[in-house]
């Protein structure tokens, strides 16, 4: 009999895990699908995507740039229309006379096109100024790091992709959902043995210690990995339905959420990192939940303590969003399991931790801390389980 198989079956046979997970997932789906009919979702970006290159050319056209700068970054579509590709106007005019949710679609798209060009010009100007400032600023580890990042950023593009939304998948809700299902499924792995009085028998069998420990660990990790895959695929399908697949890759600095952040990555690369982070974070959470389960006497206590572990990191981390410097106060949130599963804050914002004369990317500390937590949690689980004293 395959021990891992039996342990895995024990975990997945808890119907309530799937019922509750399904209920919450359906609610999540309902909320996301609710956005599908918004004007912004249907028209704003999608309608302009066919003229992406023309909008980008316009923003990098010196004549257009000069005009926008001279007008103080406040121009209308009609003002810049003679200087930009006629294809943009033709594309927008396809929607002439169309009204959606009370919006004049063509008028809204003209405003949007002008805004995208204007915004790209403004961003490039701001970043150039920032680079100049940093070159003349005192030589500190932070300034060196920022200069290095800003000068190595890929060329900025108009924000016409749906990457802002796709990256938002893993911002907070999906990691929470995944963590919830993992904790619900795994918190009873050891406590169930204690409550069903099985551990006395298990501990006295030849393979009931280390082999069973590894079987339980592998089965739990398999469950966690499956949960991550199911939920990520589920979310990806939902987002594909609502927003569509992002039609092209784009640098992170082109996205509204990450503009001016010291991040040199591309959106697809970051999204893939989020997927890996989600998987690694799920493994760490599994190890911590197993560890808590190995010393708790009841499933409920195990679920509660594991939930507290994850929730504390989440709440703390959510209150710090938007900064790019880690401090001694914020570091506990930055290295939390939630931060690894989301990565939006630590990696997306290009967070950095200054130690002495060097700037360490916070993500490195997050990965190291989580690896340590994983190892310590597993060692303690082994110790607690094997040294579990049975009630007299």
């Amino acid at each position: 009999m395959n021990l891992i198989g039996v342990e895995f079956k024990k975990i997945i046979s808890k119907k309530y895990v799937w019922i509750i997970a399904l209920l919450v997932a359906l609610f999540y789906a309902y909320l996301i699908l609710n956005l599908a009919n918004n004007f912004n979702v249907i028209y704003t970006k999608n309608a302009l995507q066919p003229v992406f290159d023309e909008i980008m050319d316009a923003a990098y056209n010196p004549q257009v740039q000069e005009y926008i700068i001279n007008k103080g970054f406040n121009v209308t579509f009609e003002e810049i229309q003679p200087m930009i590709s006629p294809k943009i106007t033709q594309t927008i005019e396809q929607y002439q006379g169309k009204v959606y949710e009370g919006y004049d679609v063509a008028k809204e798209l003209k405003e949007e096109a002008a805004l995208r060009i204007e915004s790209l010009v403004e961003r490039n100007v701001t970043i150039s100024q920032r680079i100049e400032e940093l070159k003349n600023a005192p030589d500190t580890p932070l300034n060196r790091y920022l200069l290095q990042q800003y000068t190595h950023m890929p060329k900025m593009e108009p924000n016409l992709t749906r990457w802002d939304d796709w990256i938002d998948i893993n911002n907070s809700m999906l990691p929470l959902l995944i963590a919830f299902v993992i904790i619900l499924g795994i918190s009873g792995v050891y406590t169930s043995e204690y409550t069903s009085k099985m551990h006395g028998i298990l501990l006295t069998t030849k393979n009931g210690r280390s082999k069973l420990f590894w079987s339980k660990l592998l089965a739990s990790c398999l469950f966690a990995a499956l949960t991550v895959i199911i939920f990520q695929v589920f979310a990806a399908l939902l987002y594909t339905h609502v927003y569509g697949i992002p039609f092209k890759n784009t640098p992170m600095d082109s996205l509204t959420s990450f503009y001016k952040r010291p991040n040199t990555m591309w959106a697809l690369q970051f999204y893939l990192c989020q997927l890996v982070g989600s998987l690694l974070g799920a493994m760490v959470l599994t190890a911590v939940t197993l560890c808590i389960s190995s010393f708790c006497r009841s499933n409920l206590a195990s679920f509660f303590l594991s939930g507290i572990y994850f929730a504390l990191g989440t709440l703390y981390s959510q209150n710090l969003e938007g900064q790019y410097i880690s401090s001694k106060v914020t570091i506990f949130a930055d290295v939390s399991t939630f931060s690894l599963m989301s990565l939006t804050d630590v990696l997306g914002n290009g967070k950095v931790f200054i130690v002495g004369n060097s700037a360490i990317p916070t993500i490195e500390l997050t990965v190291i801390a989580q690896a340590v937590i994983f190892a310590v949690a597993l060692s303690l689980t082994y110790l607690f389980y094997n040294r579990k004293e049975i009630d007299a």
Partner: protein
Amino acid sequence: MEKNSNEDEHIEKLFKSVDIPQITEKQIESVVKVAADYLPLGRKHMSLWDMAILELRTTSIFFWAACAALMAIAVLFISSAESSFSAAGIFIVVAPAPLLFSLLEIMTTRTPNVIELEKVCKYNVNQLYVLKIMIGTVLNIVVLALISVFSLHTLNSPLQMFLMGSTIMLTIGFLALLIATTLGQSLPVMGILAGWTIAASMLFDNGPKLAMALLSIRFTPLLITLLVSTMLFVLTLHSFSHKLTSLSLGGT
């Protein structure tokens, strides 16, 4: 008369001929004590109210601490909320917690075999468990009322919020009782509580339009929903107490 005096004399003679032992008070006491062992113990009449008081007194300290902490945190967060929308969100998230705490308390502080002892007691065990849940329900309503009162200046329409909170409490309570009745385990009940917390947070974080629609439900539809959820709750409460008392007991 003659006959009587002869009889008296005869009895007197008999008494004199038999040696009647002198019995001390201590000896009498010890005999009474032995006899008392064979007499049934006196029973004190207990009303439903007495039972409720007894239940309240025997409720775990953790339950009271959890309710107090929840109330304090909710009031603190609602008072410092950035908008009445966020305040309403926090109120909705915590609404069913005390009732679910009480259900968890019932399910975790007893071992399954306790029912064997409870079944041989004088009172109907079904009533006992209904009473326990009802105490949790009343307490939840009190907590919601107190939070509404303490957060008068932050919550837009406290009465409406109170009714909304009560409806949510009964609906989630219905779901939790349904799961507890079907599975008989405490972890899924905790799962319902955690699931609700996440779902409500998602609603106020990701679906503000929907949340606004929920908050603007009018008084009459709200009352009807409250009534329906109350009926569902009462029905599941009945089957929950019945399930607890019809557990098959092991043994030979």
